[in-house]
């Protein structure tokens, strides 16, 4: 169980990026965090990953506080962030350097096969397309078999066709080990297609507006009427969330 309890983050420049985030994510659950720019989605993910520390509140995994990056938590960034001087297989092996060489080889081969890039093992990152590079990034995050996989708008820089393909692929990968997943995205369709639960956030300061559990059966069809109906409902919610707050909605940020 991943537990985010009363988490707030104020940056040194005074910006209150996140205020009082509470979220409990069960093992194997897929949660999508959606919202416009500046609503604290990526900040929340950095706090969960242990890259940053909250100003207030705490993050814990199975009862242990997350105070630094941990082996059980994998992170896929918005950009692939592959090391250009390493081949694809060396990039995937980056996070399992502590394992014996033979196990590294077998795990890397398996991870690359699962993302369909086993034939690219010896290539350089510069030789890959954007979608392929992001699949390598996924393989790198999954090769250590994390209990929690965090995804920070991982497909936002890709074209619609590649994005759809990778979303299907992500679900296949998730089905293999069933890690807990938190996906940050601004794409409602992506959130609805992948997530069991959708958290809608609003800005100034970043906080949860509402949580939605879409009753859409899996496997989800992006052209299904129910799916489209929920997509429009969420779009309306997101539209409301991005509007400036009225007087009674203002947040007492000075306390943080």
């Amino acid at each position, binding site marked *: 169980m991943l537990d985010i309890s009363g988490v707030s983050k104020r940056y040194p420049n005074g910006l209150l990026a996140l205020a009082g985030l509470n979220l409990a994510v069960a093992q194997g659950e897929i949660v999508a965090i959606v919202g416009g720019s500046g609503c604290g989605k990526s900040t929340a993910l950095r706090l969960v990953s242990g890259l940053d520390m909250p100003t207030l509140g705490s993050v814990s995994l199975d009862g242990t506080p997350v105070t630094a990056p941990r082996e059980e938590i994998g992170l896929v960034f918005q950009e692939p962030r592959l090391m250009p001087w390493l081949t694809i297989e060396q990039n995937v092996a980056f996070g399992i350097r502590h394992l014996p060489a033979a196990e590294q080889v077998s795990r890397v081969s398996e991870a690359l096969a699962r993302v369909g890039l086993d034939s690219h093992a*010896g290539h*350089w990152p510069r030789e890959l397309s954007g979608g392929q590079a992001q699949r390598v990034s996924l393989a790198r995050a999954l090769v250590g078999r994390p209990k929690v996989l965090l995804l920070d708008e991982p497909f936002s820089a890709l074209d619609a066709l590649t994005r759809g393909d990778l979303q299907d692929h992500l679900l296949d990968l998730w089905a293999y080990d069933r890690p807990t997943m938190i996906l940050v995205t601004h794409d409602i369709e992506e959130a609805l297609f992948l997530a069991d639960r959708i958290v809608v956030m609003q800005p100034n300061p970043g906080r949860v507006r509402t949580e939605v559990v879409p009753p859409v059966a899996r496997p989800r069809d992006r052209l299904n009427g129910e799916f489209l109906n929920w997509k429009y409902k969420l779009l309306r919610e997101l539209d409301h969330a991005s509007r400036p707050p009225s007087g009674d909605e203002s947040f007492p940020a000075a306390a943080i």
Partner: protein
Amino acid sequence: MSTEIASAAGVPDAPAVRASRPDGKWLIGFALPVFLALAWELAVATQMVGGRLLPTPSKVIMTLVGLAQGGELLDHVLATLRRVALGFVFGVAAGTLVGAVSGYWTIVRRVIDPSLQALRNIPSIAWVPMFILWFGIFETSKVILIAVGVFFPIYLALSGAILGVDRKLVEVGRIFRFSHREMITRILLPATLPSYIIALRSGLGLGWMFVVAAEFMGAEQGLGFLLVDGQQTGRPAVILASITSFAILGKLTDWLLASLSGRFLKWQDGFKPAE
């Protein structure tokens, strides 16, 4: 990790990264020196300029051949090469260590960088009397002087390049819980490799410059000694033979370093200049 993975999987080089075949285009680099040598030769032959203080290329070549036949040239070359090699190794080791530590830890940089920047501007020749006093007139002082020359470009380039490494790559290392040592050796140093190799070549060039100053310190062998000997005995052809040897050795060692380092930069996706 990387070598095991690459070797165990038997990964061939990708087509785009295969080394290019030599095609003879490098010969064009000889055009300018050959043209200048011929013009120089012609100018002396037609008595446009006097050849006494400015010997012709043919005379310089004859002098080099004479020195080589007597075995004298090889002794001088080997003595100089040995000093440059030792000074280069020590200078690179120190520059890399101090540059990496200074680039990685702000507190170290704040403490040592101002002093090193001040020391960097001291001319090589100014160190000579102090080094003779401290380390004696023999090899130690010469090698240390060359190492000092090599140290600064390596230190400066590496510490600066580390500060320029993409923060996003460093975050990947943090996610994978890299120690300080791993962060330096597995991310920062590889990421700065292109700048580092330029610094190595620059350091080697300075090593060749500093060896002349070093061999002024009472050397009995070496191209710097040959140069001083030529001056003291009034033989400009010997001076030019020594200078020519420095130029040839400097170019050859730089070429060797560039060739060796090129294989570590196959991953680069840089600008390909127009033909």
